[in-house]
């Protein structure tokens, strides 16, 4: 029987559709905070990637506080073997330098 950590990773990797942290926590009878810790472990191990989906844009002079940027949920996604090796560029607009 694989460890709970590995089961969590497997559940994310083999999911057919996006799931919420709460759904996954419920599936494993864990608290969302504990599940998040487990996901963070896989982020450190390079198997998952944590992405803050709220972009920042400087094109209108607001810098990181662009008023049109909606607060989007944080996501954890699977890192594939053929993903680019370079660091994910931060979602920050460099429109006006």
């Amino acid at each position: 029987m694989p460890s709970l950590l590995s089961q969590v990773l497997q559940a994310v990797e083999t999911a057919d559709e996006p799931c919420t942290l709460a759904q996954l926590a419920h599936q494993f009878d864990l608290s969302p905070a504990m599940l998040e810790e487990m996901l963070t472990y896989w982020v450190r191990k390079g198997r998952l990637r944590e992405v803050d989906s709220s972009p920042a844009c400087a094109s209108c002079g607001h810098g990181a506080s662009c008023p049109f940027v909606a607060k989007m949920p944080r996501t954890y996604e699977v890192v594939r073997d053929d993903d680019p090796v370079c660091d994910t560029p931060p979602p920050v607009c460099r429109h006006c330098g």
Partner: protein
Amino acid sequence: MTTPQIVALAGNPNVGKSTLFNALTGARQHVGNWPGKTVEKVEGLITIGDRQYKVVDLPGTYSLNAYSSEEIIARDFIINEHPAAVVTVVDAANLERTLYLAVQIMELGVPAVLALNMADMAQRRGIRVNTALLAERLGGLPIVETIGSRGAGLNALRQAIYTQTNGTGRTLPQPVDYGQPLEAEIAALQAQIAADPILSRQFRPRWLATKLLENDEDLHARLEGAGYHPLIEAAHAAMERIAAQTGEDAETLITDRRYQMIAKWLRGAVQRPRSGVETRSDRADRVVTHPIWGVPIFLLLMWVIFQFTANVSAPLVDWIDATINGPFTRWAEALLNALSLAETWFGALVINGVIAGVGGVLVFIPVLFFLYLAVAVLEDSGYMARSAFVMDRVMRAIGLHGKSFLPLVVGFGCNVPAIYATRTLEDEDDRKLTAFITTFISCGARLPVYVVFGAAFFGAKAGNLIFGLYLLGIAIALLTGLALKRTVYRHKPPQPFVLELPPYRLPTPRNVWRQVWQRTAQFLRNATTIILAASIVIWFMLALPVRGEGRFNDVRTEDSLFGAVSRTIAPAFEPAGFASWETAGSLITGFVAKEAVISTMSQIYVQTADDAEVAGAEESQPAPRFADEAQELLRSLGEALVLTAQETVNIVPRTVNLLPGVHLGLADWLNRGEEAEETTALQDALIAAFTRTTGSAERGKLAAVAFNVFVLLYVPCMATVAAMRHEFGGRWVLYQSSYALLVAWLAATIVYQGGLLLGIG
């Protein structure tokens, strides 16, 4: 007094560790740097009973795994300095996340104290920690609840420190049982380490054995450097045996065991509100994010938003329009007269350029205000994040990356940050594809165009037109994505992912107001910068004659430079039903900013009306008195506010009336009955112009819809184009813009010609 004993204060960042340190040590602090590091080291002296202690505030860390310099500093300090006790500060409201560090510190075998800090926050959130039960599960480890910011629990903490630094009365932590085969390998390595006098003096053998199996790079490197090759080889061999037996690496198994231990300790010892019971948020999510009902609910909310935006703002739009085109323009003319500038080109620029152009856009402040209000309520309630989740399913169903909808949601506000939001997609093709379709998502700047045309041609049903246009934008985006995914960007299957959805909450007026104000202020800034500049340029182009008998500032609009330029492209729109030079010209300026479509139309139609006025030589009426006008303005504002409140109430029957067979009456507080909706000067001009161009009112309406479809889909504004060029290069932008132009033209033509074929008009 003897040499002070050392007490280390460890903890995660943001658990109030430094606040607790300050409360504990007061002013007796010394600030320096950790040797060879730029990380700040803070120490303080305290006296408890007959003993003196040097309290050292360790850097905030999430673990002792040597992932960062802070973690290495904290770990080395505990190993090398042998503190008499380590106080681990954890967040009482978030024990699952903060206990991991405590477990690792306990494994170091030092006397420990657990401080459950921010206990007040935990209590406010309804979290109850049974400290006695938790302490029992942790082998009798002292646990103290503290509130660093108020100094609460400090005496108990001091007492626990005193007890734990007392050689006879202290409680040492129990080792974590890692089970087999880990325990056997740990024991073997532990024996090897214990046999070495230097190593066993420096490290606790069981801890070092565990860390070596965790493949701790820092320790492996240090031991390699010190010549402990056999120990390292033995550790590697043990790791290989564990992997062969379990199919997993030792680090994962060790970490997993620690998490399971934490979960076991906390089960029953921490009571959360509705713990283990389905929360209201969960119940709401079962409906709102349902695979079948999620999308219709999203569409219904969109419909309500656009009904709200169009109908509630209408009375205020009419009031601002009447104010700008009436009293405000007359006051400006009077001022220009007093300065002897009324008959000069400057006077014409102010009245026909600045006031008509900028004023034409400012009229729509209420529309944007109410749109941003509705969106802010949805965002602050936590629904917006869920809409992305719901639409993810739709995106994936047609083969697009699920996360593509996140930038699209941002695009409803403004396409520029949406382009940058595509950076959250790892795959380059997914990024390009998402950016390609983002421009079809209708941004807030396009809304004034729909509102003007909607109110002019559809009256109270303007909300339906706006809703339809937004839906069309989404549909074209999805269809384009589907086509490109099957052809140009044929690539990897979508990646699965986990979303962290925030809990639902009642929107706070402060948050909602901040968002509404920031966004509306940005619209105002655009109106007074980009739109102002565009209005001045357009006025000069309208004032410059290129044919006919006219002179500068005395030319028929169709003979002006702007008229000539617009006339050259106007025939291209013949199949779509809006081939006049006025509409063509406004589409050109729409490239600068979408709101400029309206400001340009205001300028053109105001100027044209002036031309007609001059030709007709209408008798001018005496200007009303300032006091009368001010009084009338206040009266009409009051009336507009009453109507705004009335339309807010009417959202409920309008929505319920969507159900078949239901017809609730609408509120009519001013007893206006079913009288025709008021139209602005620009709307009257548009109805007349489209009717004249197409030959009938019905055809004019059809052409108006086609025009709005074109505005929705054609080349995005120049700021978006610049963002796309910055991200994907000039050639890609050329393809995207050409495609958008083509799709816009085709869609507008299909709407107009299709309508004619169906017998409309």
